[in-house]
């Protein structure tokens, strides 16, 4: 009987040692898929026609992370492909609100690896209201619409494209 009691106490001790040690309110900061889109510039065109890409929560999150308590947009990157000696201007939108503009900058300066919002001087300051709006959309599990439009300083040769990537982090309460 004594052995059983000792054994039970040991089992209880071992099985409860970690019981109160889990951080109930821990949040995991997860680098999510984000949103990105590539616009193929038609040969001969001088206009980058307004193009949008719509992303569902499962697409921009890349998984189901339970309750999302916070969202951060930590970078926007623009990369051009193809040889073009002229300049480019453009506007990037999130949920149809302009978040970033580029005014008459050399196309080649956006060649791979591209320009990052963080390190580049080629962008305007990001529109905080647009960032906030998209954060609210993500928190509410709403779709996110990435948009792009702009123009070139001269007609486009063949093989030009522009890729926009928006990188985000979510705090998930798993």
């Amino acid at each position: 009987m004594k052995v059983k009691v000792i054994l039970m106490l040991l089992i209880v001790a071992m099985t409860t040692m970690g019981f109160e040690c889990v951080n109930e309110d821990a949040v995991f900061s997860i680098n999510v898929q984000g949103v990105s889109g590539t616009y193929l510039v038609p040969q001969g065109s001088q206009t980058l026609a307004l193009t949008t890409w719509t992303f569902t929560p499962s697409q921009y999150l890349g998984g189901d992370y339970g309750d999302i308590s916070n969202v951060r947009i930590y970078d926007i990157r623009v990369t051009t492909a193809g040889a073009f000696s002229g300049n480019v201007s453009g506007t990037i939108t999130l949920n149809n609100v302009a978040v970033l503009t580029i005014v008459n900058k050399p196309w080649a300066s956006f060649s791979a690896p591209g320009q990052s919002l963080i390190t580049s001087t080629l962008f305007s300051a990001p529109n905080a209201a647009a960032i906030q709006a998209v954060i609210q959309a993500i928190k509410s599990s709403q779709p996110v619409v990435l948009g792009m439009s702009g123009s070139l300083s001269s007609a486009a040769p063949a093989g030009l494209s522009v890729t926009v990537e928006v990188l985000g982090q979510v705090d998930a309460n798993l």
Partner: protein
Amino acid sequence: MHLIQRFRFLISGSLVAAIVLVAGVARAESDFEKILRQQNQTNVQGYMQPIADLFGANLHSGFNHSAYIPQSGFHFRFDIMAMAGLVQDDQMSYEAQSPEGFTPSKFKTATIFGGKGGSVPNPIAPGDTNLAYKGSDGLFSTTIFPLAAPQITIGHVYGTEAVIRYVPIPEIGSLPAITLWSLGARHSVSQYLEGFPIDLAVGAMYSSFSVGDLVTVKGYAAALQASKEWTVFLIYGSLQMEKSTLTLSYKTTDPNATNQTINIDLEGSNVFRATIGGGLSLGFLKLYADANFGAITSVSGGIGFGF
């Protein structure tokens, strides 16, 4: 099931679940794996390194007790071992890699045993938290990291006994299979030293722990053991060399990652330990407890039944 509830269930629900907190982490693989898959190699390494240190130390605890090993005769003992590594302050935070362009390039944030995650401001708008980059919070708020396992000792042949630990947990639904096993042997040195005042033995053990194909821990230990018994009392000590490696294997979906295939080997920091302990032998029942000093300080204890 909510992840936290699942942890609680795992930790409090059964002896098997007490194998370790990390087993709880791993058994919630469907959720935890999502977290891992979003992390790049550098940051996962920092976040998980304390688990490798503590789990590796625990895996090799509780191996050394009495060094008295008869030359022959049947011996069988069943032990329930409990070990706990002590979480140190420097295991609660690490230097995480900031995304490209952020300054500083590294920032201090929580490990799995830390508190709130740290953050690094975005250089283009340092005051705007919507543009910052943040590390995850710690998952466990604890100063000890426990492990429990059953152990069988069988002997004796030419002053040698075998030590076996084995815990198989089959795949249950989406939860992966978990297997812990150790195989060791101890050999009496005293049998070659007639009249030596204390018992001496040498031993070696190999251990493996796996959770699906996401986490594996493997390690080995070799020890020189000494003990002295007086009636029911036992004191013992040992010097042990050991090595353990925690391997994480997965494909990351972190857009910042330069390499999508992650195979991380986290070496346990404990490579040497000195152990001192004591025990009681009450006939069929054995009790023992010890303290282990090395890069990781840990304690272990157990209850054994046998003859």
